[in-house]
Structures are given as C-alpha cells and as structure tokens.
C-alpha cells in the first residue's frame, strides 16, 4: 500500500514534469513523424531493388517504431538522472523511503505511456502514408507489450548512461553515440544480409534487434508470425528486467 503510494507520487510528479516540458513532448511526437515523412513518403521504399530502402514498405515499420522507442527513453531518462544529480534530488531521495528501483520503475511507466501514444500515432500514420497494409488481427495487440517493454528496457539503459555521463550535455552526446549505431545495426532499416558476414553475429547483441524482429513478425507481409513475435517478446522482456536492475543500481545514492 505504502509502496503503491510512493510509486504513484513519483509517477505523478514525473508525468507532470514530462508533459510540461513542451519541447520534449514536441520532439517525442514529431521526430519520428519526420522520419516517416522523409523515408516513407519522400524517399519512398521500393521492394525488389537493391541497397537501402529497397525492401517493401512494411519492412521499415520496426525502424520507424524503433526511433521513438530508442531515442526518447535513452535521452529523457539519462538527462533526468543528470538533472536530479545536479539538483541534489537523489541526495534528498536517499533519505526518504523511496527505493531506487521504485524511482526507475515510475519513470519507466511514464515513458512507456507517452511513448506508447507516440508509437500508436506513428503506426497509424505509417499505415496511412506509406501504403503498409496490416490486417486488423488480435496478434497486432502484441505490439503493445513489445513497445512498452522495449521502452522500459531503454529507460534502464538511459539510467546507466545518466550515471556514467557527467552532465546533461554529456548524456545527450552519449545517448546519441549509443542510439545511432543501434538504430541502423539492429535489423531495423538495414537487413542483416546487407551487412558484412563477419559483422552479422554482432547484430544479435543489440536489444533492439529482438524488438525489430518481433514487430516485423507481426506487421510483415502475410499473416502475423505469432510464435516468432512471442519469442522475441520474451527476449525483450528478459532484457528489460536486466536493464531495469542495472539502471536501478546505477541510480546515484551518494555524492
């Protein structure tokens, strides 16, 4: 009961802080939309060709969703950690009953809710603007836990980035340095067979790969491959648990 009260207090404060940062909200929704407009509408994808963007439009849906699932939690949670540290907020929280994992969980839930909305908007726009045909099927609901768990996963990673980086500027630089390679080397926009053979095993090391595979199994051509989606969902869930544990341990307690 008291724990729920603490989680609710932290969730409410973070929700208000997030939604009142207009630039953060704006870019959470608009940045991925720009990606869809640029690559899905202007550049356009063309199944059967060679090189980048030569696959059918549905191939790139995981990439579009990955933009919002990856960048916002990394930079948002990372900079929140830096801001909390600069303002001695962790110093104060260390003398309250709030646990570090409770703090991270509350922030992850806020991010999952906001990013879930952004992902839904993005998905609908992708269907409308890029010609992807996704038949309404109950299996599509698996996208919800996939997006939510991947967001939580990258919130945990963002917490570690925030701990390691010395400042808010450092967090932005570090999260971009981490996110950009992940975005393009995780079977999102670039298929594994387009990469050098020696590099392909490394693709499996990226958590985003399992998110992309899970989404593609549900939104690719043909009927949803529920088994494949569930397998990748399980991997994302397991990685989310590890990331939250690492992130909670990284939440600063001392100066």
């Amino acid at each position, binding site marked *: 009961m008291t724990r729920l009260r603490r989680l609710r207090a932290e969730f409410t404060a973070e929700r*208000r802080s997030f939604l009142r940062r207009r630039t953060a909200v704006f870019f959470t929704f608009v940045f991925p939309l720009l990606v869809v407009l640029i690559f899905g509408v202007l550049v356009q994808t063309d199944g059967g060709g060679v090189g980048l963007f030569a696959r059918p439009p549905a191939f790139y849906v995981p990439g579009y969703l990955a933009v919002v699932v990856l960048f916002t939690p990394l930079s948002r949670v990372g900079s929140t950690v830096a801001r909390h540290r600069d303002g001695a907020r962790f*110093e104060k929280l260390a003398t309250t*009953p709030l646990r570090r994992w409770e703090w991270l969980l509350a922030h992850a839930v806020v991010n999952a809710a906001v990013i879930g909305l952004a992902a839904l908007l993005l998905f609908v726009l992708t269907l409308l603007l890029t010609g992807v045909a996704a038949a309404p099927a109950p299996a599509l609901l698996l996208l919800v836990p996939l997006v939510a768990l991947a967001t939580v996963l990258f919130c945990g990673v963002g917490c570690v980035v925030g701990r390691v980086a010395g400042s808010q500027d450092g967090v932005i630089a570090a999260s971009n340095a981490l996110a950009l390679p992940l975005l393009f080397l995780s079977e999102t926009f670039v298929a594994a067979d387009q990469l050098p053979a020696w590099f392909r095993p490394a693709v499996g090391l990226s958590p985003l790969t399992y998110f992309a595979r899970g989404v593609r199994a549900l939104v690719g051509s043909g009927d949803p491959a529920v088994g494949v989606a569930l397998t990748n969902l399980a991997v994302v869930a397991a990685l989310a648990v590890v990331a939250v544990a690492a992130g909670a341990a990284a939440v600063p307690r001392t100066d």
Partner: protein
Amino acid sequence: MDTDVTATPAVEAVDVSRRYGDVVALDGVSLSVAPGAVFGLVGPNGAGKTTLVRALTGTTDATGEVRLFGDPLPAVDRARLGLLPQSFSPADRLTARELVDYYAGLYDPRRARDVDAVLAEVGLADDTAVRYENLSGGQRRRVCVATALVNDPDLLFLDEPTAGVDPAGRRSLHGLVARLADEGTTVFLTSHSMDEVETLADRVGLVRDGSLVAVGPPDGLVAEHGGHARVLVETASDAVADPPALGLDGFDVERTTEGFVVTDVGAADLPDVVESVVAAEVSPDAVTWARPGLEEAYFRLTGEAFADAEAERR
C-alpha cells in the same frame, strides 16, 4: 568531542572522515547531538559543513561511525529523517503544492502531514499554485524547507536553510526552527552566519578545514574563547593620539581608523569608561558597547577572522 549526552543521542558521529582525492573534506570529526536539541554547525564556505551533513545522512562514502537514534545508518528508519540539501533544486515545472505533495506521497499516510498546513508554516499559503520556476529565490528556498518538514521528521537536517532568503523570511524560518525544537524535533543546522546559529542553536560546532575546532553551547564558547566586551568610540578628536590623556587607567586602549577601542570592559565598568571619554573632551560621534560573539571565538580559536576565511574560500 561533545560527550555531554545522557539519553541515546539522536546523532552520534565518531572519527568521521571523507577525502576527495588529495583533498581532506572531513578530518576525524566526532560529535553527538541530544534528542530534541538544535545543533548548529558553522564555518566558512568550503569548511566541510555540507560534507558532514552528507556523512551523517549516508549520502557520501565517509569513513568512521555514524549512528542516528542509536542505529547504524543502513538500519535507520528513513521516514524519521528530514533533509534539506544545500544545493537542492527540485522539479521546476511543478507548483509549490505539487512539489510538497510529491514528497508527502513518499511517506506512509500516517506520517505525511497536511500539505497546505506545511506550506502555510513556511509562509507560502498564498503561492501554492505558483510553479517553482516562477517563485523568487527566497520563496523557492522556503518550498525546499517545506519538503523537509512534510513527514514530520524526528531528526531534521537543514543545510544552509536561509541561503538567499530575505530578512523577513529568515526571521520566519528562525521561528519555525524554534517551534520545531520546542515540539521535540532534533535539528541539525548548518550556516555560514554566526548570528544565525548563535540565535537558534543549543550547541554549536565551529568547523574549519574539515575539522571541528570547538563544540559547545554558544554562550559557553563565547565565554571560553571570545574574550571580553569592549567599547568602540568613533571620533575625529586628536586626543586619541595620546591614549594616556584619555584617563582610562587599567584598560587597554587601541587606536583604530575610526577612533579607538577600549578592551575588556565589563558591564560594571561601562559608566566609568563613558565618563572618562566625556571628561577627555573627545567629542565622540558614536560610542558602542559590544559583547564578544561567536565570530570573536572563531577568530581566537583559528587565528583567522571569519569574514577573511569566507572571502578566501570564495
């Protein structure tokens, strides 16, 4: 070491040290604070006050032993503590009420106080709906104080609570600390204002370069280390050039740029000194009798004027 404690101390520190690389921020500090007491830690900026608060609250990795209410730090019930960090800066897009409500939500409802009552207590009853980012510096600090009071703490750490607060707000916070102490809250207060701790604290610790140079009641420290009262005479009279002509036999007289100072003047001596000054036709512009304070005690203990120590560390 302060050992004048009969009950289980609210705060007990033994040989607490903290280094940052080659810099010794705390050097073997030992102290004890009785339950219900107000302990004031005073020293110039950079003396180690904040590091000591962090060591006592477990928010820095210090060596030595710290016990709160008799328990080692990891076992302390955190709901009994209140902390106002020195450089605390809470979420700036929340209103004063939302901020205090947030911190109240971190405690058991039986422990959490009414948010509006706490805000009224720090003088912000009319500004509860104003966002933190839109409050003045003094109002912000008062919101921060409120966040430390919201769980009705048994032990309250206030690190520079009146920094940036205007005189009226400072008086209000002084009254609040006094009231909390009357109600049994133990208060551990840091300040670089000698007057503030002298007014508020039952016991004072003077800190310099990470070490406690003296601990005791303010009056006791002043009596033991502050020297005697003195009379300050401001005048342009030439008579000052010849102190014996002043007829102040038995007193030490020192010239100053504004006039002269007669040292070691007790209350009983005051009429004689004033009479002599008038008889010498010095034509004083002002005569002031000043008791020594903690600042004089600090000077005599460290050989360093407090104001100079402050300036040196800025």
